[in-house]
């Protein structure tokens, strides 16, 4: 199972502001009544988008200026709460290919990396600078360079950080662990044999 080496993500940006945006917010539970992940894209941030509409406002994900954006910006502790992989699946199927935030909740982070969707950290200050640039020029192309660990927009570069193991997994095309795990099956059996509770 050769996977794509993810070293760069290019595209336009969209900013969904807020800290602690939980996975219930990313995809409300009622849309998880499904047995496949197909079609989840339209439910990304469903309630927040509907609420904005009802208030006569436009949620960034519905703002035509940002249609087709593939790099999502947000605040700290993004993806907290429920472990539902439906959340990154919905974002991915919406068209998001990378998320940039001040910090990420752990389960969401792992789920996203497994889909080959980088989650990288920038300082709040840099996120504000970049999102201001996006606001003034929504067509601006961004390049998230994982090799150089930077985000480029116009002629400016901003440093990014990403957990070393996730970085390695993405750039080496090993972001889905299943192939590596399967290679260790013999070692798994050996380990199982040492654990009395697994003997039954």
């Amino acid at each position, binding site marked *: 199972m050769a996977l794509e080496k993810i070293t760069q993500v290019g595209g336009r940006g969209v900013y969904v502001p807020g800290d602690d945006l939980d996975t219930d917010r990313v995809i409300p539970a009622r849309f998880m009544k499904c047995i496949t992940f197909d079609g989840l894209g339209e439910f990304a941030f469903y309630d927040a988008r509907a609420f904005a509409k009802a208030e006569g406002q436009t949620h960034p994900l519905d703002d035509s200026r940002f249609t087709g954006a593939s790099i999502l910006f947000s605040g700290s502790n993004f993806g907290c709460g429920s472990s539902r*992989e439906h959340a990154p699946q919905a974002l991915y199927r919406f068209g998001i290919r990378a998320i940039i935030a001040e910090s990420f909740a752990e389960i969401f982070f*792992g789920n996203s990396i497994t889909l080959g969707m980088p989650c990288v950290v920038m300082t709040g200050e840099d996120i504000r600078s970049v999102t201001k640039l996006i606001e003034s020029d929504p067509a601006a192309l961004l390049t998230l360079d994982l090799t150089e660990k930077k985000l480029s927009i116009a002629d400016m570069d901003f440093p990014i950080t990403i957990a070393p193991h996730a970085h390695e997994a993405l750039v080496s095309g090993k972001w889905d*662990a299943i192939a590596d795990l399967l290679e260790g099956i013999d070692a798994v059996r050996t380990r199982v044999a040492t654990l009395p509770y697994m003997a039954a």
Partner: protein
Amino acid sequence: MSQTLLDKVWAAHAVRTLPNGATQLLIGTHLIHEVTSPQAFGMLRDLNLSVLYPSRTFATVDHIVPTDERAEPFSDELADAMIKALRSNCAENGITFFDLPTGKQGIVHIVGPEQGITQPGTTIACGDSHTSTHGAFGAIAFGIGTSQVRDVLATQTMALHKPKVRRINVNGKLSPGVYAKDVILHIIRKLGVNGGLGYAYEYGGSTFDAFTQEERMTVCNMSIEGGARVGYVNPDETTFEYLKGRPYSPKGADWDTAVARWKATASDPDAKYDDIVTFDAAEIAPTVTWGINPGQAIFIHEKVPFPNEVPEKDRATAEEALAHMLLKSGNPIKGTKVDVAFLGSCTNGRLSDLQEVARYLRGRKVNKGVKAIVVPGSQGVASVAESMGLAAIFREAGFEWRGAGCSMCLGMNPDKLVGEQLCASSSNRNFKGRQGSPTGRTVLMSPLMVAAAAISGEISDAREVFDIK
């Protein structure tokens, strides 16, 4: 030695180091349910893989089951498709399924311990973030996504990085009317909803030593709400006493061997921690949330905060919370009108939760303006509660007595808030829209505080309502 329980369990379950530096960690016990497993079985089929150790995966159905009309087919076709998919996936792969007709169905985090499947010194994974609950037994238990459910089914392992360990001591005696739920809400309030990122929380101290096994589960359950994927308590006599005689607990001579092994997994007295935080139990009062995450919590006698009273970085969220909750800064939280009272969930849907409330409920009536429901966490809890007469006490007081499931903790079954209803809830999340209505409002609290709110029709101090001194 100087090792924590986490160090020991990790070492005992590490299979090998993967090329990217992650550990391939053996997951001894895998729990699955209908929401996060069907896609994983689909992935196995796509990859032509089979379940490696079917006897180490256990299934139940909880999120989507109706709690009133449970006859199949369910009126919700999507829910019906989900239970059928789980049933056929389990049958096809030889996985034990605590299905509705077995009398053993319930919320996955209540069923595991109840059956004795959850044991000290083990690793557990489940596609549900409240898997941290099982840490109450001294297990290392991870909430995982669906791709990892696939990984565990196919390889009984997953790729993980060892977390740091923060020891959280709570010492002293809780005041009457203050519960384990208040302890964890207080901890999250103080350490923040992201304070636990990268950490496992090891809970200890004299308060935890005195806690029952079920109280420990309530605390460990909400570790994830503090950002810690894993939370645990070192196993002790309380743990062993709870496990003795349960269906999957070791029997006969195996029991003594197991207890000796379990004792040895506890953290060493000189274990080294990455961080230590200590709380005084006497300072904790009944706690309720006022906002849209579990860290936005105050004592019942406190006032709804002004945004400028919270740290600057939390202000925007505080403003958003006040707008959503329709609460006014400076007003007491006490006295806020309640529409729905929900007693249940993997946090507080166990027998002891129901017993504690029932103690105070005789002769009381649910306020006319409140819809109050009790949802036992499992069919096992329900049947014992019924035989003890607890169900009758709840019904007599005006609560609806329901069948086991996740119910109103999340909007995946018919139990949902409507419009802007405010729910006094013993569950674990007050996120926007969590209880099924995008504009619904959730106030988290202990089970007895839920009962107090149900009776008075407003958020109340249970100590006053029930004259607890």
